[in-house]
């Protein structure tokens, strides 16, 4: 995308303006964004699938967060920032990996159909095995699981971030968990 060694002719004309932002905005940014940098990166990393792209996405999200900081009116700062990360990541993916962004059919709940069987109990699985299982999930399912299980967000917060109804969040979680259960049942790990 870019390299730190970029040089442009006549770049000395880029001069800092005395006052680009109001006095409170950097302070607000510091208070709202910085404490949640790990969460921002975590989501970017899970959506992007690798360190390099995740860092690009997280950086861009921070720039956007700064741009929108005046629009943050209280509320949960982490959820607010994660919504920006999510949008940035999806735009990035659509542009750079269009095939990764295949919308799932939220009407489909076939995997849940047979209520007479139950999946086995996990006796704790290896971290790398779990990571691989999460990475194998479709993008929207992975997003729901990461926001719910790793970030501990509520259905309502996830719904706002993913821009879907709360019921969809629940069905995505149900389907994501079923896929994880099946993943381990097939592999025989953690059973």
């Amino acid at each position: 995308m870019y390299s730190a060694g970029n040089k442009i002719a006549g770049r000395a004309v880029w001069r800092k303006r005395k006052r680009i932002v109001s006095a409170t905005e950097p302070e607000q940014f510091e208070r709202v964004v910085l404490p949640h940098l790990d969460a921002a990166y975590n989501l970017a990393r899970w959506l992007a699938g690798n360190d390099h792209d995740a860092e690009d996405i997280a950086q861009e999200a921070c720039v956007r967060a700064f741009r929108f900081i005046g629009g943050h009116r209280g509320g949960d700062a982490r959820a607010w920032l994660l919504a920006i990360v999510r949008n940035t990541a999806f735009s990035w993916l659509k542009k750079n990996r269009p095939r990764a962004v295949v919308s799932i059919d939220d009407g489909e709940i076939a995997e849940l159909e047979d209520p007479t069987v139950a999946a086995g109990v996990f006796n704790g699985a290896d971290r790398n095995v779990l990571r691989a299982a999460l990475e194998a999930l479709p993008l929207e399912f992975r997003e729901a699981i990461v926001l719910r299980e790793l970030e501990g967000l509520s259905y309502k917060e996830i719904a706002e971030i993913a821009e879907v109804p709360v019921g969809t969040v629940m069905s995505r979680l149900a389907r994501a968990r079923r896929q994880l259960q099946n993943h381990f049942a097939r592999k025989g790990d953690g059973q």
Partner: protein
Amino acid sequence: MNCTEARLLLHAHIDGELDAANSLEVGRHLKTCTACAAENASLQSLRTALRGADLNYQAPASLRTDVRQFMRDLEPEATRPAVQLQWLWKWLALGLAATALAVVSLRPTGISERDTQLNEVVASHVRSLQAEHLMDVASSDRHTVKPWFDGKLDFAPDVQDFAAQNFPLIGGRLDYLDGHAVAGLVYRRNKHLINVFVWPTTGPMKHETEARRGFSIIRFTAKGMHYCLVSDLNPTELGELAGLLEK
């Protein structure tokens, strides 16, 4: 409650998202149904595994450093030694152009606040013409554009389409002027793009038409909002749009 219902609600149940009545029902079902009880145990163990495995990624030090540096570069000039141009360029390449550096040219000292504002308006306009900066929401439908601003601004801009008057609305975006968030509405007249910046008034602004660096600028206050129009369109035609907005 049957098993099919219970299976879906089980998720809301273990997530603590179910209302008391349904939670009670699910609990009752689990006591009588071994298959669902086993599913519940499986889901609980999956959760324990996910939460116990420390799957969160930590932000790398480089990201933290970059964001810190970004903060430092936003501080007023007097309080820090020098801009790290290379670093700034990196952020610019990422699209920071949208915020941090509004005016490209060197600005002589002793310039009035009014001039600063006008320069900033022109800079915002020029920046918006660069690829991907023009619109955050592209739509000629004011019912799409207006709600898009909800939650992004602490005011609701009046969004109207003037296609019938030959000024079609083509979209909107969030922008920054003078340190605060403003609504940016984008209109078009033939090949000319027009940016209309709208933000709540802090006092009356006299209606004025300006030319700056080849752009026409019209500013006025109406309906409790400041409006600032900027375009390469001639001032007369731009005035027509101003008239429509002022109504």
